[in-house]
């Protein structure tokens, strides 16, 4: 893993900055090291894509240069301009994360438009790339949105059906009602053990932990956050243990023991959580 420095050779090699076709629009792309750093068990790369809310329809200008045709069809089918822009931001972040991973692991320089990130039948992003080496490993990617920022985490994985999950939430937005609507009384009791000044941030970390585990398992929250229950919180270690309801239909339930660990933190004005299931 390299440091977060302007002279980073990966960033220089990939020419992060101007998005093709986006001349004059404020779209900023860069690696985000903190979420990747907490998951030291494997090689993973995280990237962020932020746009200026006042900027014009940059996604329409970037689409021909950044999307594969199947992606372009999905993007065009979205009914609202703001939804299309969010979707495009997420694709750009995901493609950048995959490109960094390919460069890091295989020394492959993959242009943005050669990496495809398309939803599967469950809505989970799947990576396609003609340059992907023929190995038993596959690339798992997860995307999350927060305001005008999208982030994506990509990792190489050898397991069976599950993968990686990331979730982010703004530290400054209003989150009234989240403790009551997203957590059961046993979970809020764990939250109340956190020191008062840090409690709002821990509330978001715990929420992100649920979402990250749900994404890693590839099944989502299924409309009920109580399907994912916070069992333990290790504040010094920055981990949260999440118990998964046995009613969920998982690709490989044998991979889940008592709980799944999510690594949590706060950085760049956001709470984040990262989880993976082999």
């Amino acid at each position, binding site marked *: 893993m390299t440091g977060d420095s302007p002279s980073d050779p990966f960033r220089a090699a990939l020419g992060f900055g101007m998005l093709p076709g986006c001349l004059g629009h404020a779209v900023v792309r860069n690696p985000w090291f903190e979420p990747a750093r907490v998951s030291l068990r494997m090689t993973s790369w995280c990237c962020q894509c932020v746009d200026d809310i006042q900027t014009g329809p940059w996604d329409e200008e970037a689409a021909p240069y950044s999307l594969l045709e199947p992606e372009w069809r999905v993007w065009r089918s979205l009914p609202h301009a*703001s939804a299309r822009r969010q979707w495009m931001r997420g694709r750009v972040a995901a493609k950048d994360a995959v490109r960094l991973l390919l460069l890091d692991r295989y020394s492959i320089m993959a242009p943005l438009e050669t990496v495809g990130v398309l939803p599967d039948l469950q809505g989970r992003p799947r990576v396609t790339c003609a340059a992907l080496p023929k190995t038993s490993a596959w690339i798992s990617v997860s995307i999350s*949105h927060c305001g005008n920022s999208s982030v994506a985490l990509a990792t190489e994985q050898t397991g069976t059906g599950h993968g990686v999950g990331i979730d982010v939430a703004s530290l400054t937005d209003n989150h009234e*009602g989240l*403790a009551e*609507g*997203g957590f059961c009384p046993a979970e809020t009791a764990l939250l109340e053990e956190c020191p008062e000044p840090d409690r709002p941030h821990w509330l978001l970390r715990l929420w992100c932990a649920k979402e990250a585990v749900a994404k890693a398992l590839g099944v989502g929250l299924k409309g*009920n956050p109580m399907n994912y229950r916070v069992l333990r919180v290790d504040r010094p270690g920055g981990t949260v243990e999440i118990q998964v309801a046995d009613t969920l239909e998982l690709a490989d339930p044998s991979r889940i023991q008592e709980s799944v660990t999510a690594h949590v933190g706060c950085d760049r004005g956001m709470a984040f959580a990262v989880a993976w299931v082999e």
Partner: protein
Amino acid sequence: MKWPFHESHDRTPETALHLAMDAIAQVSGNAWGTVESPIPPQAFLGADLGLSSLAVARLAGILNQHGGTKPLPFHKLFVSPEGSLRHDVRVSDLAAFLEQHRNTPRL
């Protein structure tokens, strides 16, 4: 927070729709969707209003705080009458859910 129906025992469809719309307006501040006023009853919470799962959880929390003496069974909102999971629901579905499950408000 102002809550116009805080002490209302009214369970009419109109009241339930107002409850839903008022709560949606409170949680939609961070969403990307264009929240029209009034919010169209046929709009989907996710696809049209841009509510994230975090926003929907907040919605559940806010409605629970004012919904009555017992917690609302929000997990049922995303289950269709046939028993299958719904990935998105309309504002009118939420209103119908409130009309069905809302009980005596907490005072």
